[in-house]
């Protein structure tokens, strides 16, 4: 199959006699279409040409939302590079020193070597502060990128078969990234991060049975001890990065194996990938984006200060500042600790169960991440969908999933805002007690509200899409007929625009796809114990969806000029197309802007 190889602006060069006709990919008539001599050496030893042939013609679809994962990836690389620089000067020791360096306000103050070396990097090493800032900012962008990328994957259904494994890997990567960040900002042993380590010690202790043993093993004895910083250091520079890089390579390898997903559009099917090849367009765009991310991170690092540890002072267990928060990605966990009430701690046979702490910390993170990781399998079980999916879903076309996702995000946001309850109280002049009680209530109430509202918005958007397909785009041109009627003319969609709006499915709930309960010989259908639950959940998932316009409906809309029967359905039912309200089906004819007469109503 020949594919036209576009030559771009080549043919504009005056000295070029470039091809005037489409060329096949194997027929490169450009004069330098020879395998480079330098690579022949490599090819004779490792078969490089085979790999390059496979890789260089890979096609990547183009959409801005696919850049979010790239932001995460490039930020991780920046963090690795800058982190390596920092290890040349950072001393991961809690040994005591008296500061005698360039930062005068701390002269003569006792501190750990870790803190002192951080001050040296900031004030003695030329450009050291810039590297520290780059490292911290890139870590923050890393986690923001992960969150946005995960949201994009979730809301477009990109985690469906065959990509469930990659979703699980991604979920694990996001958890490791958060832990890596926590370990990293705790290394300078300053007052703010040290307070966080104190809280970590406290919530580790709350674990039933093993709590005290766990804290003594991790801290090497009582808090604070002298082991925690060196141990966090090796976790942060060796153990976690090794696992993260390994999993990430696997994450990318799976994208190569599966090929990237693509949004619905003309020419895009479940059996192809439409986009740009690596050589040269995608390499330039993706490679260029690395420099854009790095450059913006550097500009932010130059102008916006982050983690100015010299202002906090060294960690001292007798000191704390009001308005202390962890880095933003840990807000939801610290917020949970602020909201969980004390009466959740109880004593049973003289043993203490601190569920107020245990649930908000040691249980919350694994629980959230397990639910996230399991979601593709849960959804596949509920919907009974076993096919491969390579076309993404627009979020509005999966209303229940979108609503569930937004409700979950609202719960996360309530917990995260609860972590800044003291700042909110100060800035907004509110009672912190009232805010805390408000957040406790919102944690349960808000997700329900958000679910309901999000689902209705999705359904409205779907109905709006149907309107556009059936009746065309509003043009804003008002036409007056000789009889004195006014109506707005609509411009019908061309087939390309229309395709993106109709290329989605409305699956049937599992309860309706199986055969009769009892067959004609009187044998009942074999049901697994959970199938009733599954049918109900599946029906919940697919109730209230709006199905795509079919050609028959479009034909009816075209020809219904004389009818008077179309009425707005009050609540859309499954499988029944939601029809539009009475009125304006004025079409420009395909070639111009003339309009037809409006329908007459009896």
């Amino acid at each position, binding site marked *: 199959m020949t594919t036209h190889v576009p030559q771009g602006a080549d043919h504009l060069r005056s000295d070029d006699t470039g091809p005037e006709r489409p060329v096949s990919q194997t027929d490169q008539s450009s004069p330098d279409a020879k395998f480079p001599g330098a690579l022949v050496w490599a090819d004779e030893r490792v078969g490089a040409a085979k790999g390059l042939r496979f890789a260089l013609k890979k096609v990547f679809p183009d959409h801005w939302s696919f850049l979010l994962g790239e932001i995460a990836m490039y930020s991780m690389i920046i963090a690795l590079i800058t982190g390596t620089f920092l290890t040349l000067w950072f001393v991961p020791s809690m040994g005591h020193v008296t500061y005698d360096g360039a930062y005068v306000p701390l002269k003569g103050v006792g501190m750990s070597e870790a803190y002192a070396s951080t001050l040296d990097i900031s004030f003695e090493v030329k450009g050291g*502060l810039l590297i520290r800032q780059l490292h911290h900012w890139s870590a923050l962008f890393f986690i923001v990128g992960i969150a946005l990328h995960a949201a994009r994957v979730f809301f477009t259904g990109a985690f469906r078969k065959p990509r469930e494994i990659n979703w699980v890997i991604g979920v694990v990567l996001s958890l490791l990234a958060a832990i890596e960040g926590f370990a990293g900002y705790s290394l300078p042993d300053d007052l703010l991060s040290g307070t966080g380590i104190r809280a970590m010690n406290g919530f580790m*202790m709350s674990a039933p049975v093993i709590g005290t043993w766990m804290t003594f093993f991790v801290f090497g004895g*009582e808090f604070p001890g002298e082991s925690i910083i060196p141990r966090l250091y090796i976790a942060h520079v060796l153990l976690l990065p090794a696992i993260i890089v390994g999993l990430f390579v696997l994450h990318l390898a799976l994208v190569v194996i599966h090929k990237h997903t693509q949004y619905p559009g003309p020419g895009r099917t479940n059996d192809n990938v*439409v986009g740009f090849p690596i050589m*040269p367009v995608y390499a330039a765009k993706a490679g*260029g984006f690395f420099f854009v991310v790095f450059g913006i991170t550097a500009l932010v690092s130059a102008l916006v200060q982050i983690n100015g540890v010299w202002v906090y002072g060294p960690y001292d267990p007798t000191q704390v500042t009001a308005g202390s928060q962890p880095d933003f990605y840990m807000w939801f966990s610290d917020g949970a600790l602020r909201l969980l009430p004390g009466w959740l701690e109880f004593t049973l046979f003289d043993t203490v169960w601190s569920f107020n702490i245990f649930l908000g910390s040691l249980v919350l993170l694994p629980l959230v991440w397990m639910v996230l990781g399991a979601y593709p399998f849960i959804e596949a079980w509920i919907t009974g969908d076993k096919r491969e999916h390579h076309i993404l879903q627009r979020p509005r076309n999966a209303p229940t999933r979108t609503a569930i996702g937004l409700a979950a995000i609202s719960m996360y946001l309530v917990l995260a805002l609860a972590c800044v309850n003291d700042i909110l109280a100060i800035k907004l002049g509110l009672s912190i007690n009232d805010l805390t009680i408000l957040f406790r209530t919102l944690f349960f109430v808000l997700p329900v509200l958000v679910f309901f509202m999000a689902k209705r918005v999705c359904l409205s958007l779907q109905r709006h899409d149907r309107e556009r397909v059936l009746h065309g785009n509003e043009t804003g041109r008002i036409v007056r007929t000789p009889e004195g009627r006014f109506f707005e003319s609509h411009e019908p969609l061309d087939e390309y625009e229309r395709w993106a709006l109709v290329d989605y499915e409305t699956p049937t709930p599992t309860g309706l796809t199986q055969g009769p309960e009892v067959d004609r010989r009187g044998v009942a259908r074999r049901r697994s114990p959970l199938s009733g639950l599954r049918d109900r959940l599946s029906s919940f998932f697919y109730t209230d969806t709006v199905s795509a316009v079919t*050609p028959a409906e479009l034909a009816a809309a075209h020809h219904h000029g004389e009818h008077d029967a179309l009425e707005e359905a009050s609540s859309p039912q499954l499988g029944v197309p939601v029809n539009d309200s009475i009125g304006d089906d004025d079409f420009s004819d395909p070639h111009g802007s003339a309009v037809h007469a409006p329908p007459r109503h009896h």
Partner: protein
Amino acid sequence: MTTPHHDDSNAPATRGDATPAVTERFENPGMPPHVPRRADEDPRAARRAEFQVVALFTISALASIGFVVAYYAIDRDLKGYLLGIGEVNLFHVALGVTMGLSLLCIGLGAIHWAKTLMPDEEVVEERHPQSSGEDDRQAVGQTLSHGWRSSQLNRRAALLGSAGGALGLFALPLVLPVVAGLGPRPRQELYTTHWEEGTLLRIDPSGAAIRAADVTQGSVFHVMPDGWVGHEAIEEHGAEEAMISKAKDQIILVKLDPATIRSQKQREWGYEGIVAYSKVCTHVGCPVALYEQQTHHLLCPCHQSTFDMTDDCKVIFGPAKRALPQLPITVDAEGYIVAAGGFREPVGPSFWERNRPGLLGDDQS
């Protein structure tokens, strides 16, 4: 070009007229016609795009050189004022801005180049089902089965059992030294502090002892035990022990109006309205540092646990469960405040064995 794909195998062919055929679903119309860019058709536009890309790369090169110049030429402590930000270290800002521009402009140049001059016609790559064919699966199945049988594992149970046993156990010599070497195991440290009967209370970090007669109503002191205050503690006991002491020995000393104290035990353990409580929050261990004199509330800034100082520091709001432990105090012969005994309960966050010290070993080794 790709042929349009459709889901229905039995859909009738599209008729030639303007109205769409009545198939069950719409068919994929195929790739839309390509719209050429300005630079594809107008040589002046193409030259302009090339100039823009060259300009961006040039800015990047200049910025890289600018970084080197700034690194050596600008004084490390030079300060300046930037509109919208305030006072900044100009050396840092210069390094960062030049580095940022040098990187950013390469990226912008490459992307602009791709978008204006490189081909923008989309290309199609075919997908194949992820599943391998039946013959691949069968071949693997046969290889695995052959391996199983030819290794004779299916016939020799002792072989299988002993291999499994050995493989299951070999990790022990690697894991045990790490797990057993971590430690020490928790013993009575969680139940003891450096406070005992007669220990003098000292203000931290100045080290001054406190005369009960000089304590005015409403005053607050941050207190550590005698011998564990300030630099001397580090010199005498070492930094690690001094920090551990800070984490569990810290006390807040407050003088209240005795009439406002509602708890009899609180009154008895105090001295003329002066009361001493552990400053380590019973939630997760932050110092409970915010004393609200008017309301007599003690607020922990970390998670806002609030303790009522007139009611034996019971929790009145927030996630903590237990009241702060009280240190019984009295005065010595010269009128200085001393501890009347140690704490009667463990200080700090709750833990599993809190009410059963016997669960943790009791020899201090």
